[in-house]
């Protein structure tokens, strides 16, 4: 590994000199050079005989004059003195003064001959030379990579290139570790800032990672992501307009074996009637997949309505929606003392709320009434199996109502969460079916129907090996199962404080999901509208250009790492520019996402 002097030689020429400095702010005086807020600089230092490189990021700069009048005086003079000018001196007379913060420093360890990165607890020496991280200089990019490797990452999911001011350092890629997806991620940015492209790049990186895992080029586990696609764009991306193809293009490039290992049975689900078209498939759920908690998580319910729904579900289990829609509640009133306590208005209100599940009014939910010949018919078990094999699943929700979109996310998240918990609770293979049934409220010994059909399906699939919860006759260790991430689009609609008040599956996942390898990706234009409890659980934030000052403040306030000094950056960020902040990184990193 190169030492300080060798790296300094590469960084030439000198950009400027460190002037006043304290632990809060550094000032650099430099020649009249074209720089931008956010530009990066390296300051070699040998204070105390320890070789260090400080990484300085400018947050503001000013034009100053060398040895002449104060700039304001010159401006005043120019205004009041007739026909006066300010002669254009060579660069050493017109200087710039940069102010900014130390992001951290890399320290050379002579024992290991390696550079380690630390948070900014120290200061460079007096009058240290300052070197500009010039975009386009591959040699300097290499130095940056050497010094900041632990922060940039070397493996995992590529998300973009380090941003220095306005330009990306193409040779300095930034990676998210794969485990970040089993934690919670916030993706914040206003309309048009490039959120979709970011998610597309992320999906591609996940697919690349999974491919490497299958080929044995990197250690597992694979990663699964459930990406809700409200605009139906991830599948074909810009292929229709002559641009790059989306997931379809990637999938088409796979060999048969790779398709088997990485894609089967599908990567694209839709509410459109496409039957089965390659690895695209019609997506539907059964009314039997639905619990009152799912509904409560996405729409307003009074306490009485919640209580009624839960009791009704407790009695009818997976048939509760059908019974409710049939209006078959009077019978219950006679038979069940507790239900008689509910006012007819409460019952009617709940009936109205589930009205959108009526046959003919939903493309998503199938009827469930075995006595009438409507058996359990849902793609949910297939989705669960696919996710537990490490898959990228895109669900096109263009033909779904907003409720349906939220509901499907909620159901899949809840079931996955329940299954992972059941898996963790099981001490042996024999115990697993009963744990799964319990987690799905199905306990026949206590006449509790719950989600019996779904439980039956899942247990069958475990036995057939489709759901990989048993390995070599033993319970599969969770570490060998994929990291799961569920993307929640328009997050404020379901993760707002009012919705979380009566409990939500997402509140549970945000608090406990990490333990079970399930993470959420909270996608939103607004940070302020999201429940504080969820925000505090985010470990990684990908912050893009935000709409207003309040949102920027909220983003800074809730970031996992200190974003002091990035306020201005957030204000001027262009399309595809992101500030990543993560609890597992020492410093926030500005990144340019490449156009997919």
């Amino acid at each position: 590994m190169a030492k300080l002097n060798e790296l300094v030689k590469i960084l030439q020429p000198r950009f400027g000199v460190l002037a006043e400095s304290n632990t809060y702010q550094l000032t650099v005086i430099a020649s009249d050079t074209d720089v931008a807020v956010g530009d990066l600089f390296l300051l070699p230092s040998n204070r105390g005989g320890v070789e260090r490189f400080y990484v300085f990021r400018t947050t503001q700069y000013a034009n100053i004059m060398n040895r002449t009048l104060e700039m304001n005086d010159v401006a005043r003079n120019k205004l009041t003195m007739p026909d006066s000018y300010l002669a254009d001196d060579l660069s050493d007379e017109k200087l710039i003064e940069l102010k900014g913060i130390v992001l951290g420093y890399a320290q050379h360890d002579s024992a290991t001959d390696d550079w380690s990165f630390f948070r900014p607890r120290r200061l460079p020496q007096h009058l240290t030379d300052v070197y500009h991280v010039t975009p386009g200089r591959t040699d300097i990019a290499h130095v940056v990579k050497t010094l900041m490797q632990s922060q940039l990452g070397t493996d995992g999911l590529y998300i973009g290139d380090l941003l220095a001011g306005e330009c990306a350092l193409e040779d300095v890629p930034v990676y998210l570790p794969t485990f970040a997806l089993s934690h919670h991620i916030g993706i914040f940015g206003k309309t048009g800032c490039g959120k979709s492209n970011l998610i597309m790049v992320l999906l591609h990186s996940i697919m690349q990672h999974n491919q490497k895992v299958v080929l044995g080029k990197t250690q597992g586990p694979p990663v699964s992501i459930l990406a809700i696609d409200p605009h139906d764009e991830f599948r074909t991306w810009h292929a229709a307009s002559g641009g790059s193809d989306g997931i379809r293009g990637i999938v088409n490039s796979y060999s048969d074996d790779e398709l088997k290992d990485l894609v089967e049975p599908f990567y694209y689900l839709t509410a459109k009637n496409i039957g089965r078209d390659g690895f695209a498939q019609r997506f539907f759920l059964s009314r039997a997949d639905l619990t009152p908690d799912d509904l409560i998580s996405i729409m307003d319910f009074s306490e009485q309505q919640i209580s009624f729904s839960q009791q009704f579900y407790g009695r009818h289990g997976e048939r509760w929606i059908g019974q409710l829609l049939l209006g078959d509640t009077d019978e219950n009133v006679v038979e069940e003392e507790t239900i008689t306590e509910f006012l007819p208005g409460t019952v009617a209100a709940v009936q109205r709320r589930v009205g959108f599940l009526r046959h003919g009014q939903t493309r998503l939910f199938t009827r469930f009434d075995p006595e009438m010949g409507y058996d359990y018919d849902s793609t949910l078990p297939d989705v669960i199996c696919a996710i537990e094999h490490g898959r990228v699943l895109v669900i096109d929700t263009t033909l779904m109502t907003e409720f349906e979109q939220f509901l499907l996310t909620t159901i899949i998240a809840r079931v996955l969460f329940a299954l992972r918990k059941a898996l963790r609770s099981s001490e042996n293979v024999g115990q697993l079916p009963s744990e799964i049934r319990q987690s799905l409220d199905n306990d026949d010994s206590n006449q509790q129907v719950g989600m019996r059909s779904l439980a039956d399906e899942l247990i069958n699939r475990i036995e057939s090996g489709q759901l990989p919860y048993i390995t070599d006759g033993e319970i599969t260790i969770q570490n060998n199962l994929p990291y799961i991430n569920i993307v929640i689009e328009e997050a404020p609609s379901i993760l707002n404080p009012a919705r979380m008040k009566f409990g939500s599956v997402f509140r549970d996942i945000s608090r406990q999901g990490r333990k079970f390898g399930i993470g959420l990706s909270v996608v939103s234009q607004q940070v302020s509208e999201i429940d504080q409890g969820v925000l505090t659980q985010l470990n990684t934030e990908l912050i893009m250009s935000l709409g207003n000052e309040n949102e920027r403040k909220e983003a800074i306030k809730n970031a996992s790492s200190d974003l002091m000094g990035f306020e201005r950056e957030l204000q001027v960020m262009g399309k595809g520019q992101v500030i990543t902040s993560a609890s597992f990184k020492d410093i926030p990193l500005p990144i340019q996402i490449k156009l997919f």
Partner: protein
Amino acid sequence: MRYSIHFKKGINEQLEHLATEMRDWEDTPRIDENEKENIKKAICQFNHTIQADPFKIGGVDGSGDFPSVTYADSFVYTTVAHGTIYRSDLISGLKEEEPSFDPIIHFSWFPEEQEKRVRSWDKTFEALTGLQINDVISSSDYLELKSSFNKRTYSISNLHQKLIRPHASDSGNIAIQLRSVGELSAALQLIKNGENVAYALIDGTFSLPTVTRSSDGTLFYEHLKRLCCVAARKKGVGFFALSKSHGLPGIENIEEIVRKKFELEKGGKAEHWFLRLPTYGVESWSLSITDGRLLPPPGAITYLVRFHKNTPIFRLDMDREYWSKYIQSKSKEEMRQKERRIFEHLDYASHDQRCYGYPYPIKAGHDRASLTKGERGTLRKQIIDAAVRAGMKRQLFRNASIATGHE
């Protein structure tokens, strides 16, 4: 200074006497009506110039640290000089060009011991100019001027030998010599190496302190100053010395004459005018304010000029031969035109806000050459560090003033 009451009384008496003397001198009418009329006729106006045909103008200034460090009875002096070249520019007024010569920085070591000191002076002169001393003396026209003035001949070797080389501790005179030689060396480089430079300006005058003395003792910078004139006239460069603190008495009388000529209200200040001081052999009248002064200096033509009402009247000296060759004309109007053109160019160069009314290239040269307190300190430290690395003891370098509480 302790300012006791007893002491104060003596001072007050002295000051009163001084003031009386000054008042009496001031009250003496210095310009008669006839002279006023001559001045009025000689005063010429030029245009406030905000646009100019393309031209280049350079400026130099010198500075240093005199001395930087001392040890035993020897002293180290630092000389700095810087030249700048600008071209007229539509956007920024003046735009600086990359100089084709390096700034001058030189460290001179002067011991008190005679032989070594002389050697050190010669080494310094040659290092600063980049020329042999004899070459400077022989190429310059100073010798001719001195011979012509004193009606005797001088040999180059004698003049070389008798150059005034102040003692190592005579920091006042050393400062003048070093600063002047540094500045003129930079001017010579600018004249020789500056491409298509129309004007080269220095801060000062073309006065030659020892030219009128018959003795062989001369100052090296006198030779160098005249060498600059010779080199400039060969290249057609207007080499001018501009002095802002010339100290001519009765200057306000001239200002009043100008005001009246331009029919300004009382108290008003005329600007954009020049006045060529009567020159022996050119004009038949004389100016009483120059009585007792060698003005214009031998070999020079002197102008008084005002570029802007807020800046003082400057004295501008130019080489007489340059003047004869490039300005003097048979027709008075033609000569005025040539003079106007020069002053309009200088006026154009005097519109930078940092020194409005004064040619900016000189100011720029000054800014580059002047050393801040910090820079002086750094240079001193570097000199001592180098000496210590060479095997000397750090404690040899003392600052007696600091050590005795004088600084």
